[in-house]
C-alpha cells in the first residue's frame, strides 16, 4: 500500500492554488511534477559540485563526472541493461528517436526497405521515420487501430515481413492509454530479422521494464515524465547495434582524435554524446529514479490501476461522456469527449476550476483521424493523484457540461 499523503507531501507544487482553487493536476502524460528531492538535487549540484564533466583533472570536474556516470549505471540497473555504455543520454524521447532514425537509418536502411509503425504513434515516432524514409526511399507500413484503441497481432504478423528493417512502436499510447503487446511484437519482428524500437515515454513511470527480458533493440524515454528534470532523456540500444551506427552529431566529447585529414570517434556511449550535456539534469534524473525505485514501480502500477478503474467507472456514469481507448490493457490515461461539446471548451471550464487536463490531438493526429474527432479531453494520472481528485474532476465535468450545453 502506498502512503499517498506522504508522497503528495514530497511534491511542493501540489499545494499551489490555481485561480483560487487547490490544484488538481491530471496532465501527467504531458509531464509529471517533481518531488522536492529532485529539485534539491539539481540545486545542490549547482551550488556545491558544478563544473564541466569529462577530461577535467580538477576536483569538481571529477565529482561531476562521477555523479553523471553513476546515474548512467543507475539507469542501466533500472531497466536491466547488460552494459552501462548501452545507456545514451539525450534531451528526451523525441531526441532519442531522431537519433535512431537518423543514425540507424543512414547505416541500415536501403531503397525498398520497410519501417513498421502503428496508427497510435505520437508524432515524434512518425515524423523522424518519414524524414529518413524519404531520403532512403523506404516505405512506412502502419499497423491499424481497432475500435477499442488496441492493435491486433494478426495485423502485425501481416505487416512485419522480410522487408521490414525496423518496427518502432509505443509501449503505451499517450492519447488512448493502450498498453501494447510489445513482447509479442518484438518476437514477431525478430523472427523476420527486423529490429524493434520501443517508445517508453508513457510506460517508464508506470510499468517495470527489463530490456534484456524483452530482448528489445532500442528503448527510449524522457526524464521529465518520470518525475525528473526536463531536457533529460535516455536511449537504450544493444551494444552490437550501437557500435555499428554512425554518430548523430559531431562535436566535443565524441571523438578520439581530430585532424583535418580525418577524425576517429569515441567508443560507446560517448560517440553519441557530443557537446556539454545537461549534467545537472542527469544528476537529478538519478534522484528521480531512486525516488521511484524506493516507492516501487509495482506498487505504483497497482495503485494507478486502481485509480484508473475508479476514474473510468465514475466518468462513465456521466451522461453523454464517451471514453476513447477502452482496451483491456490500459495505463493511466482517460481520453474522453462530451456529446456535442468541443474539448477545448471543456478544458477551459475545467482550468477555471483549478483542474489541469489536456485537450487537443495530443500530438497523435492519426488517432483523431481514426475516430473522426477533432481531439479529446485527456486526464492522465500519476502516483500522487487521489480518488478525491477524481471526484473533483467529475464535478468539474458536470459543471462544464451544464455551462456549455
Amino acid at each position, binding site marked *: 500500500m502506498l502512503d499517498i499523503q506522504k508522497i503528495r507531501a514530497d511534491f511542493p507544487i501540489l499545494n499551489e492554488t490555481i485561480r483560487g482553487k487547490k490544484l488538481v493536476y491530471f496532465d501527467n502524460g504531458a509531464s509529471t511534477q517533481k518531488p522536492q528531492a529532485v529539485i534539491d538535487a539539481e540545486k545542490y549540484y549547482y551550488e556545491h559540485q558544478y563544473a564541466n564533466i569529462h577530461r577535467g583533472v580538477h576536483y569538481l570536474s571529477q565529482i561531476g563526472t562521477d555523479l553523471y556516470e553513476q546515474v548512467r549505471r543507475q539507469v542501466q540497473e533500472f531497466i536491466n541493461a547488460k552494459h552501462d555504455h548501452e545507456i545514451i543520454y539525450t534531451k528526451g524521447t523525441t531526441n532519442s528517436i531522431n537519433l535512431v532514425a537518423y543514425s540507424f537509418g543512414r547505416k541500415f536502411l536501403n531503397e525498398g526497405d520497410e519501417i513498421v509503425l502503428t496508427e497510435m504513434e505520437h508524432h515524434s515516432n512518425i515524423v523522424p521515420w518519414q524524414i529518413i524514409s524519404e531520403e532512403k526511399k523506404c516505405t512506412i507500413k502502419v499497423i491499424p487501430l481497432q475500435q477499442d484503441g488496441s492493435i491486433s497481432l494478426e495485423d502485425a504478423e501481416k505487416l512485419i515481413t522480410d522487408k521490414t528493417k525496423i518496427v518502432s512502436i509505443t509501449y503505451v499510447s499517450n492519447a488512448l492509454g493502450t498498453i501494447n503487446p510489445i513482447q509479442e511484437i518484438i518476437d514477431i519482428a525478430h523472427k523476420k530479422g527486423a529490429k524493434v524500437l520501443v517508445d517508453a515515454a508513457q510506460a517508464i513511470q508506470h510499468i517495470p521494464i527489463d530490456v534484456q527480458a524483452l530482448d528489445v533493440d532500442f528503448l527510449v524515454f524522457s526524464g521529465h515524465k518520470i518525475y525528473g528534470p526536463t531536457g533529460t532523456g535516455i536511449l537504450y540500444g544493444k551494444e552490437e547495434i550501437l557500435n555499428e551506427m554512425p554518430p548523430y552529431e559531431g562535436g566535443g566529447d565524441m571523438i578520439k582524435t581530430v585532424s583535418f585529414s580525418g577524425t576517429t570517434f569515441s567508443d560507446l556511449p560517448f560517440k553519441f554524446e557530443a557537446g556539454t550535456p545537461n549534467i545537472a539534469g542527469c544528476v537529478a534524473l538519478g534522484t528521480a529514479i531512486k525516488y521511484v525505485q524506493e516507492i516501487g514501480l509495482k506498487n505504483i502500477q497497482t495503485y494507478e490501476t486502481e485509480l484508473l478503474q475508479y476514474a473510468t467507472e465514475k466518468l462513465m456514469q456521466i451522461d453523454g461522456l464517451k471514453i476513447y481507448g477502452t482496451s483491456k490493457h490500459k495505463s493511466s490515461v482517460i481520453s474522453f469527449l462530451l456529446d456535442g461539446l*468541443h474539448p*477545448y471548451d471543456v478544458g*477551459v471550464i475545467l482550468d*477555471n476550476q483549478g483542474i489541469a487536463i489536456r485537450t*487537443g*490531438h495530443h500530438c497523435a493526429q492519426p488517432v483523431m483521424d481514426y475516430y473522426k474527432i*477533432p481531439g479529446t479531453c485527456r486526464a492522465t494520472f500519476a502516483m500522487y493523484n487521489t480518488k478525491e481528485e477524481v471526484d473533483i474532476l467529475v464535478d468539474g465535468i458536470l*459543471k462544464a457540461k451544464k455551462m*456549455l450545453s
Partner: protein
Amino acid sequence: MPTINDIQDDIIECFSMFEDWSEKYEYLIDFGKSLEHLEEKYKTEENRIHGCQSRVWLHAEQQGDKIIFYADSDAIITKGIVGLLVKVLSNHTANEIATSELYFIDKIGLREHLSPTRANGLLSMVKKMKSYALIWDNQQA
C-alpha cells in the same frame, strides 16, 4: 457611429459587472451561441486560422469604405471571443482597423486566450484582421 474604442469600452463595462469567472464564461458561451454561423462556402482553407485546437474561420468583405468581418469557430468559447473581436473591429475603415489598439482583451481578463502558447489561433486571427486592413489601406493610399 461608435468608434472602435467606444465598443471596447462598452465591452469592458459589461464585463466589469461579472462577479466571478463562471459568469464571464457563461456570457461568452451565450454570446458565442447567439452569433450566426458562417456560411459553409466561407469555411475554406484560405479563411481558416490555424491553431492547435479549435478551428477558426475569418471572412472579410469590403462595403463602401468599411471592412466587414465574419467569423466562426467549432469551439463555443473561442467563438464568443472571436465574436467580440468581430464586434470591435468590423464595420470600420481599413485605416481605423490597422491603427487600432486592442486593449479590451487585457481589461476583461482574457489575455491568456490570445497568448501564442495557447495555440488556439486567436492571436493569428487578430493579426489576420489587421493585415486585411493594412492591405486595403495601402490599396486606397
